[in-house]
């Protein structure tokens, strides 16, 4: 909404609220796991920041690489740069009161290096780390596979307590995933309806000003907003865009940028009936009126210079260096183009579109939590495709199923289209989403419908093997172009994430992947 001091704007209201002891907030869902080796969602990542400490992390404010656990003044580079000798700070304890030692650091590394630990996160660390030895109770020597100019950058994992595990073969479905023991600023448990946190104060390295927190699963967006307004809740991690303009003008609530690079998509099952034909996928692309979808589900205002939603034509946000601006997004439906493509693909129209004598029926699923950000998106997409001549059935997929089945490629027999979103930080590597799945090579781990295209694979390999920055960029520009043509995904939009916190919650600093890392500073003003 464009505002003018001549034309009018909005009214400021005032309210007085009592001091809250327990800071309560809504997240998109409950965490899937509180074991950080098995984090798959941003909800998991955020919760883990509260329960655990990373060995090293980037300061959310000034990006400096730092550690709450390691005494940097004593860190030594050894073995011609292949090892780091780390000395633990004095007085650090786990939530259970036990002393944090070098055994815990080495246990965590050993667990990640143990190939029987089925952790996707550990896989990344296996590329860099070769081992860890305990030299003293407060000294660990970490060895890398090669010399890195900044080896600490390779040590940003959350540290686990050795005492809570019987072996380095760490499995996801253990009690630890619900009742973790960490060194993080908050301790607590995950229940069926909420996760609770209590300040971890009996240690030298944390002194959170907030004593208690409660994470609840997001309810209906209108309920979230009203409970935030009336002071029953203090924060919402992800505020649906449609509610942002009204919250922005309220003095009791403040919107906070959460600079994730998130983009939304519809994955297409390229092995399913007519969707195996590229022309049919292209026709679906032209059957969607993204402009209308955006307006109806996100509440887009054409005059808003700060629009949270921007169309994309490939697997990157427009501000990324990887985005290929020569590929235009498809903004409006073009029924004539769609019809021509379907006809060329051998489909026939008789009211509905028919393939080999049968009406084309599309089973469309959506990660249920997205419905809270984009109201009715699933229904709107279903309606648009029905109007284009397809039979549709729509399904909401629980967060649990989405994480365990959809992104691991196990819903190929159940759905033709899946609506989801991906979020990125500094690393915008998308190889896992489109590379031919290979369990042995650890490739294509997030390939939703097990898409496989040799040309795309070759481009992804070009990216992976690129020896220059421009070669990597050009490879992804080519990938963008290939995917916009072959369409294993229909690319929708980038959607900014904004949190809302009550004004009395202060000194909030948030950056991608570091939401609660600075929670020690947050405080509630009276």
């Amino acid at each position, binding site marked *: *909404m464009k*505002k*003018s*001091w*001549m034309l*009018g*704007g*909005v009214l*400021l209201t005032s309210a007085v609220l009592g*001091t809250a002891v327990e800071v309560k907030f809504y997240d998109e869902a409950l965490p899937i796991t509180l074991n950080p080796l098995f*984090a*798959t969602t*941003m909800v998991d990542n955020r919760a883990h920041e509260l329960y655990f400490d990373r060995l090293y992390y980037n300061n959310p*404010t*000034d*990006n*400096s690489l730092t550690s709450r656990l390691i005494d940097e003044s004593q860190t030594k580079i050894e073995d011609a740069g292949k090892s780091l000798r780390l000395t633990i700070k004095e007085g650090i304890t786990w939530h259970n009161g036990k002393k944090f030692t070098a055994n815990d650091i080495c246990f965590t590394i050993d667990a990640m290096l143990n190939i029987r630990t089925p952790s*996707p996160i550990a896989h*990344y660390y296996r590329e860099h780390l070769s081992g860890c030895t305990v030299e003293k109770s407060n000294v660990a020597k970490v060895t890398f596979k090669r010399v890195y100019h900044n080896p600490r950058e*390779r040590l940003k994992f959350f540290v686990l307590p050795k005492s809570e595990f019987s072996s380095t073969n760490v499995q996801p479905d253990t009690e630890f995933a619900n009742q973790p023991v960490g060194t993080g600023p908050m301790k607590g448990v995950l229940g069926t309806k909420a996760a609770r946190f209590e300040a971890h104060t009996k240690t030298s390295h944390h002194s959170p000003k907030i004593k208690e927190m409660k994470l609840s699963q997001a309810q209906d967006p209108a309920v979230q907003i009203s409970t935030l307004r009336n002071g029953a809740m203090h924060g919402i991690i992800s505020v649906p865009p449609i509610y942002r303009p009204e919250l*922005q003008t309220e003095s009791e609530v*403040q*919107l906070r*940028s959460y*600079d994730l*690079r998130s983009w939304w998509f519809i994955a297409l099952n390229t092995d399913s009936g007519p969707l195996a034909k590229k022309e049919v996928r292209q026709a679906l692309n032209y059957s969607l009126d993204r402009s209308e979808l955006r307006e109806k589900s996100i509440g887009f205002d054409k005059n808003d*210079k*700060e629009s949270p939603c921007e169309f994309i034509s490939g697997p990157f946000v*427009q*501000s*990324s*260096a990887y985005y290929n601006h020569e590929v235009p997004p498809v903004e409006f439906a073009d029924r004539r183009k769609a019809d021509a493509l379907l006809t060329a693909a051998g489909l026939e129209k008789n009211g509905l579109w028919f393939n080999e004598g049968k009406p084309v029926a599309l089973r469309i699923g959506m*990660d249920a939590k997205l419905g809270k950000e984009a109201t009715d998106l699933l229904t709107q997409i279903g309606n648009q495709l029905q109007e284009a001549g397809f039979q549709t059935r729509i399904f909401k997929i629980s967060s649990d199923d*989405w*994480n365990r089945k959809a992104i691991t490629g196990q819903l190929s027999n159940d759905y033709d289209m899946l609506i989801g*979103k*991906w*979020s*990125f930080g500094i*690393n*915008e*590597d998308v190889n*896992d*989403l489109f590379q031919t799945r290979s369990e042995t090579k650890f490739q294509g781990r997030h390939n939703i419908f097990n898409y496989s295209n040799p040309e795309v694979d070759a481009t992804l390999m070009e990216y992976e093997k690129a*020896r*220059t*920055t*421009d*070669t*990597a960029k050009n490879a992804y520009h080519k990938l963008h172009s290939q995917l916009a043509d072959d369409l294993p995904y229909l690319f929708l939009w980038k959607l900014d994430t904004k949190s809302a916190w009550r004004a009395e919650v*202060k*000194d*909030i*600093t*948030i*950056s*991608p992947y570091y939401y609660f890392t600075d929670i020690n*500073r947050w405080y509630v*003003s*009276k």
Partner: protein
Amino acid sequence: MMNVIMLVALLGCSDDSTEPSEEGSAAPANVWSAADVERTWVFKAADANWRGKFEGDPGWTALFNRDYESALSGSSGASAVRMYSEFASVYRQATLMHAHATNHIYDTDRQDEDGNDTLYLRGVARSVLAQYETAKTDFASVEDEKLKGMSTQWSSVLDGGWTSDKIIEGSFVNVPPVKMGAKFRPESIPHFTISTTVEGASSDATDTTELWVRSRWYEAVAREAAKQATIDERWIDVFMAPWVVPMEFDTAKSQSEGILAELKPEAMNEGWLFLSRNLVADDALFLYALQFSDAPSDTLNVWSEKSLLAKILLSCVLPEGNLDVPSVLDAASQLELDILESMKASQGKEEPFYPLFADFAEQAVLIAGVMVAERLDQREDSGRLRLNARDLALQNSKDALFLTSFAAWDVENRYPLRAQDMIHKYNGDFPAFKVAGHPLGTLQIRLGRSAGVPGAAN
């Protein structure tokens, strides 16, 4: 009316919210008086007569709506001096951003592919960053004859920094004549390619010089406009001082003493205040003095007598001499509320745009807090205030110049993501931002590919 304002201010002082809280840090009692509030341009903006001085100028209306392109093209007289100064400062900070990104790419994040010709780019960046000795070494190692030639114009800067008689020209820009209304069109990028150490592979490059030349052109037009509007152009120096790049710092500092001695706040055109980061004229001079002060704490003390921002920020300094971020946050939000209430009380009514103006007061405290924190060597604290200023700004008080400087600060910290988003958001208003965006992209790719952490999360 005065009594009503006084009451509001007293209520503010005695409000429990300004007392130390159990959970948070100590916030100071309000230090501003009703008279202080009345001095601010924000308070005055409630008065239709005062506001009327600006409402007829489409430049001001466009600036309020944060339509920078229209603000520039629609401005005249004092508003033109201000808009061209804003653009000059924005591009100064874009120059700084480009320089930091380029310096990181070919220094901390240098890769095997980078040949000696990249040292031309780093040499220019280091010149801008006032790292003259290393810049000389870089330029001496450049192999390409054309790039060597392009580096020679920087020699004069490498001896003692930039002065206004040292002309730096862009090799890739068509500079329009220095006159209002002339368009300085963005050039296509990349500016050129340089060879890499990988056989057959070259690399796209953009040169920091273009952004510097562009910024200087806007400044020149601002000075021309000032002459036409009979505005002392030294106010342009005051306005731009917080945003100059390191290579011009010494020159700017050398003239600051004279400027501070001669410029009088009462002579300042209100066009420098309206919709600005300063609340009263003395704030502009305080922040000007702060940039060049060898004893920032003393400067804060001295100016607290006259500058409202200095007065507020001094009250947020802890006994050990550090600026206390929670106190600044509390003071900023309280000042906004107090001014808002005073606006309503003075006019006997509530207009829907009052909160939009009042938000400028909170922004002013936060942005000045950023500058004080930087000068007190509290870099992380300045970042906390930057984040809060960015998040708490309403649409109309969202300040492109501050955000560009935040982006440059981020890039200096090897963090390009927010800066890329900012550049993308403002590329319609400042089309030449794409020049700065180029090295940011390279930095992002290098950092991302070497991050060693997973990409997509769900």
